[in-house]
């Protein structure tokens, strides 16, 4: 055998096979296949086990990446699954939807032309395969306490919080207004990136661990928050951000202009057979679609429209290609599937008489860096143009959507609507109401799934301390 230490040179990085664009755009199924055990071992063996694991450092949940890669290289699947779950509550989802190219794989030492280790694909492989072979988190040592915690929102933050709590003997009861768990994992992220069976499997696993889900319950409407606060020892809020960023230009209210999330949700509802009213469904079949915004949500809209049979899909973004915030992988996949990208374009108006007919765009160029370090686009005068459109989707991001009952429960907010939490190690993610904790997008603003997972887990640690179930290290 070739020198083990030079495996990264001898064997190139190889991602799992991907369906051809003409096949994958016909369906809403995931486009990547699974590694074989041999391929996974070989790819994992490319890791050089750096003394400074930059992957682990860059990973928001600080997965023990080199360690589980070594286990997979050794064929120790269940041990790898166990270790993977030590730091991440939803590894099979992060493996699928994390922008690895900006996180672990981007930081991988081998990413300097040698080809980063395919960490995401292996992470997904580990949990998928372990589940398939009957592995479950080991709960045999857990000593049940009498403590119960209510979790509002079954999205990534809430699930992660429940995972850590139940492993520490605390009973989590998770409330969600939808019929399925997952929050945006289920309703926001299209199935070609994350099939819903994966979320269902996680639900089974978590229920088996002792997590209770109460679905179709909208806290504040179906059940009063007072009741939760009274009945449970603590409450965790992981309710996400649902207010849309508006463009602030004319024509946004025209028929044919859609907000990204309802559009995606309507599509998933149909896919899952959860549709209540056929009229909610937004169909792009045969339409010329313009998507405004270059983030991950924008990419999801692009590719959903393509799969619905849109006549054309164009995506506009106000900065250049290099500065686009969305995952590079999703960008590449979108292009392969036929999306046209218009960079350095800013919409100034949606035109149309009684329904949308086009988008008026203006060219931009990048000016000096703004207060947050990113270069601010400036409009180039005299460059207006209008492109024709039958439908426009606005994907500018999300803003916090604080519930009306926050104030009465002394849950303070930052000026921009984000929930204010403690940063102290003893009381991580505690809101200004000591009994109530919060994490995820509603705390940090719209961000990645993996950061929500991290905050949910950290909040659980804070709750455990608050309940007197954890002591600090000496």
């Amino acid at each position, binding site marked *: 055998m070739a020198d083990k230490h030079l495996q990264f040179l001898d064997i190139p990085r190889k991602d799992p096979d991907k369906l051809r664009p003409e096949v994958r755009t016909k369906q809403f199924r995931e486009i990547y296949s699974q590694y074989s055990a041999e391929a996974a071992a070989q790819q994992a063996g490319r890791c*050089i086990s750096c*003394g400074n694991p930059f992957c682990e450092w860059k990973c928001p949940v600080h997965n023990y990446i080199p360690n589980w890669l070594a286990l997979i290289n050794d064929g120790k699947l269940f041990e790898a699954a166990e270790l993977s779950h030590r730091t991440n509550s939803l590894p099979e989802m992060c493996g699928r939807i994390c922008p690895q190219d900006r996180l672990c794989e981007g930081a991988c030492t081998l990413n300097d032309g040698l080809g980063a280790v395919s960490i995401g694909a292996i992470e997904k492989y580990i949990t998928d395969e372990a589940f398939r072979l009957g592995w479950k988190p080991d709960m045999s040592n857990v000593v049940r306490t009498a403590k119960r915690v209510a979790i509002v929102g079954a999205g990534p933050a809430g699930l992660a919080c429940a995972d850590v709590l139940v492993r520490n003997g605390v009973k989590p009861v998770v409330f969600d207004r939808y019929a399925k768990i997952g929050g945006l994992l289920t309703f926001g992220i299209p199935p070609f990136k994350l099939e819903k069976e994966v979320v269902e499997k996680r639900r089974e696993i978590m229920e088996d661990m002792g997590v209770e889900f109460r679905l179709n319950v909208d806290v504040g409407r179906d059940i009063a928050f007072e009741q939760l606060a009274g009945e449970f020892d603590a409450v965790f809020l992981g309710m996400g951000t649902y207010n849309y960023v508006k463009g602030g230009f004319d024509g946004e209210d025209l028929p044919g202009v859609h907000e990204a999330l309802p559009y995606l949700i309507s599509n998933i509802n149909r896919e899952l057979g959860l549709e209540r009213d056929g009229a909610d469904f937004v169909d792009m079949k045969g339409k010329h679609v313009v998507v405004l915004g270059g983030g991950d949500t924008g990419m999801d809209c692009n590719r959903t429209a393509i799969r619905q049979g849109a006549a054309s899909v164009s995506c506009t973004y106000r900065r250049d290609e290099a500065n686009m915030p969305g995952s590079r992988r999703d960008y590449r996949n979108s292009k392969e599937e036929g999306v046209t990208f218009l960079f350095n374009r800013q919409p100034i108006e949606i035109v149309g008489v009684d329904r949308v007919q086009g988008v008026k765009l203006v060219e931009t160029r990048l000016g000096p860096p703004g207060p947050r370090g990113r270069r601010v686009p400036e409009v180039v005068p005299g460059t207006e143009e209008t492109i024709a459109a039958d439908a426009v989707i606005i994907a500018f991001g999300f803003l916090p959507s604080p519930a009306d009952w926050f104030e009465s429960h002394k849950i303070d907010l930052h000026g921009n609507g984000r929930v204010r939490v403690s940063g102290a190690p003893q009381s991580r993610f505690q809101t200004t109401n000591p009994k109530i904790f919060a994490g995820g997008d509603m705390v940090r603003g719209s961000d990645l799934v993996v950061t929500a997972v991290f905050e949910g887990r950290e909040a659980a640690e804070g709750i455990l301390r608050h309940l007197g179930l954890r002591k600090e290290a000496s």
Partner: protein
Amino acid sequence: MGLRATRRVDDLLKSRHPYKAWLKKGVRYLQTDLIDPRLAAEPFDGETLAQYQKMFNVSAEERDEIIRVLAEDESEAVGSMGDDTPMPVLSKKVRSLYDYFRQQFAQVTNPPIDSLRESIVMSLQTQIGPEANIFVPAPQHAEQIVLSSPILSQRKLRQIVALAESGVPNEFIDLQYDEHLDLKTALLRVCDQAEAAVRQGKLVLLLSDRYLVKAKLPIHALLATGAVHHRLVATGLRCKCNILVETGTARDAHHFACLIGYGATAVYPYLAYQTLFDLMRQGVLKMEASARQELGRSYRRGIRKGLLKIMSKMGICTVAGYRSAQLFEIVGLGDEVVELCFEGTDSRIQGADFGDLKADSEYLARRAWDKTEPVEQGGLLKYMHNGEYHMYNPDVVATLQSAVMTGDYGQYQEFAGLVNNRPVSCIRDLLNLKAGAAPIPIEEVEPISAILARFDGAGMSLGALSPEAHEALAIAMNALGGRSNSGEGGEDPVRYGTEKNSKIKQVASGRFGVTPEYLINAEVLQIKIAQGAKPGEGGQLPGHKVNDMIARLRFARPGVGLISPPPHHDIYSIEDLAQLIFDLKQVNPKALVSVKLVAEPGVGTVAAGVAKAYADLITISGYDGGTGASPLSSIKYAGTPWELGLAETHQTLRANELRHRVRLQTDGGLKTGLDVIKAALIGAESFGFGTAPMVALGCKYLRICHLNNCATGIATQHNVLRSKYFVGLPEMVINYFKFVARECREIMASMGVRTLAELIGHTELLQISPGETSKQSKLDLKPVLANAALVSDKPQYCIDPHNQPFDRGALAEQMLADMRAAIDAKSGGKFSYPVNNFNRSIGARVSGEIARRWGNAGMSAAPLIVNLQGSAGQSFGVWNAGGLHLNLEGEANDYVGKGMAGGKIILKPHARSIFVARDTVIMGNTCLYGATGGELYAAGRAGERFAVRNSGALAVVEGTGDHCCEYMTGGVVCVLGTTGVNFGAGFTGGFAYVLDMERDFVDRYNHELIDIHRVSPEGMGTHVQHLRGLIEQHTEATGSAWGAQLLNDFRTYIGRFWVVKPKASAIDSLLENLRRAA
């Protein structure tokens, strides 16, 4: 006469008593079955194992990277780079008590031993039984149970315990104590129990933490061992009993060394065995089924090697000499702990007390008994989130790299902020600059060029580094006006005189590529006594890093691993060091000679000796220096922080009025301008940087340097990695050092100081911070700042331009004056001088000038022939250059032909001498050490260690002492007489002929790497011819009577010769290789 008298005394003594009968009757050997299948006769279930691992702080990392490797490879795990974690007393994590103990190592005052190549002198034999008065011979002395090593298998422990019935009574002492008790009381109770047991006649005390009980805590086995040992010493009972330790705390070699060093006779590491058993059960270990049976034995072998290495660092041969010797420095334990358990050990800065230690074990116990808590993942060896802090963590590396690539000082400041405001990790992090000085405008501070001149690169060899990286560092340092360091391993002569020349040339124990020309192309010649990452140890460049270029520069063969011995074989004392310094000053009088030491207690005294030995520069390295490859336990457990060593050295030099004679440098983890300022305040005027400039070049601190697969193309000789993935440019290093100097200037301005010189030694400008943790707050750092209390009128830094030796080398100067014209004209000539034994290093002065003008071999065609008569002093013909022929009639001292690159040295006895030349020693020890070429003929015997590390010289002598041809990598050695023992240890290149009249050479050579073949006329005609030619040359040059006799009856003698060669070389290729080398 003297010999015979000694033998008679021996005979008299040994016949006085029936010693052999006593031994036969008294000594019992414990049965050793080759295979002990019961690695863990009562295996822990997974849950129990996890509980013990948590209680004794075994992480998954330690299990996989340390314990598993010991069993799989039968040797300690190897790593690279340095230790960048805090000392345990500074750490915010619970660290092993063993981590507070730093192994002592020999430097200058006595040599470390090479426990691998010189294993014949090493022993771990251990005895159990009482020790009686040795002045009263009696059969009881022999009543001992003998073990081959102090690491017990389960079977042996059982046998010992079972001996109770046959008169070896033992006492089981449980180390668990009630958690409400305080630790000191618990320890005293253990001591009481031990004392009472011995008074009752118990011979063996078994200290055990084997049986964990809830609501009890285990006393750390090392605390208990030390405390019991000291109690028994104090009560006069110590010799009546033996301490055995059954503990979960002992896993790596250092742990065993600590226990034995504080009195344990033997140790049973049950948790290591249980952990291995579990790995085997899980099928994780990669080994044959049969080998699995011997897992415990493999592990013990690994530990034994490590233990021997630790002992050999101090130059100790037998474990009996190491036991209870307390050869450690404690960093970070308070007096109450040291007084009760480790009395007499150096512990200079206080630290954790019994309360802190108990709190640590309470934390561990809480996790151990909580089944939901996992076994710790680790983080001590490598950065891991939530694990131990690492000073070169990814944040630090990434920020530094982006700063040097962009050249943006703002980004550098971000890097400096990360470093300067990190959690307390070093002693200097607890020393803050005093506020309140009136700042001055920055324009008034000396320019950065003045500061840059004080910066040196630390020694990193070409071999460890790729040529591209090595040259980039040299170009950068030369551009900045600092100095780069060649490291050990020679330097390509095409770099001499260019911007790629390393101004510092290192002379280390391997003497690879150390030629007169190499030495002449230097501003500083650095003698590396020890290396911060692995003091007291040698090094090894693995064969896969030795490509054609490396082999050429090191005078070795490609693909063959190269060994740097632990000691310099020419430095066994401070006088020897003085001699080497003199040798270097003779060959290159313009160069400054520097001596690199590693911080440990007493380094100040050593440094004072070094200053008196006329070194110009002393470097004090901290424990945190880097390495290209070293056992992990050496990286982690030896050497102390430079802050302590530098402070001690600076204070000692000043107190002895030596400070003005030497420059003082420090290195070890320096990263920012603030580090430089603090080092200056503690006493340094010059600063060495190793890792930081390498990180600036693109090193990501991967710790894989020893594997040759460095993905950044820096620490590798792999062509693809070097050519495609090395992105470093000298400018990055230049940016880095300019940033550091700029930061220095800014700090100086804020302190109101104009030059760095004004800061040196001014410890009153530092104040001690109270610390962030309970342990930190108990430290006493006043000794580091004690310089301020010394009289203030003595110099704080070097004033003399050169530390001029007392010996002005009058004869050498005379010789050079006589030969100058012949050298300049390259004309050769004949010269004659009488010589005396106070004429040292004769020839070096001339060789240096030859090399300066004409290179190593430039005068070979027009030789200077020098006839000398008398007794030559040490280092006769040292660094001999091509074209210098030294004919000595008389005899010579040690180090003849050391570092010889060319020319000839001929020694013959005085014409009127009456002794038999071939039975008489004509030159001393360690001749031809590190020679790379030339010829030596001596009509007489050589002393010990003849031709050590020879890599090209041809030599004929008539007999040698022990260790002849050790570590040889090239050349030919012909011995026309008996050799001592251990011939050819570590011999990987070249070959030898040995005349074996007594037919016992087979017992005298080291069988590890070489084999021997009879020289026979059939099929070996070329060797016969070659050998005959050598003897003819020898006889002609020296007039040897023995040589003449051999030639006269050559057919009789030829069959008594052996050809000695490395196993890896084919016998037919030897002469071919020789021709090619010539």
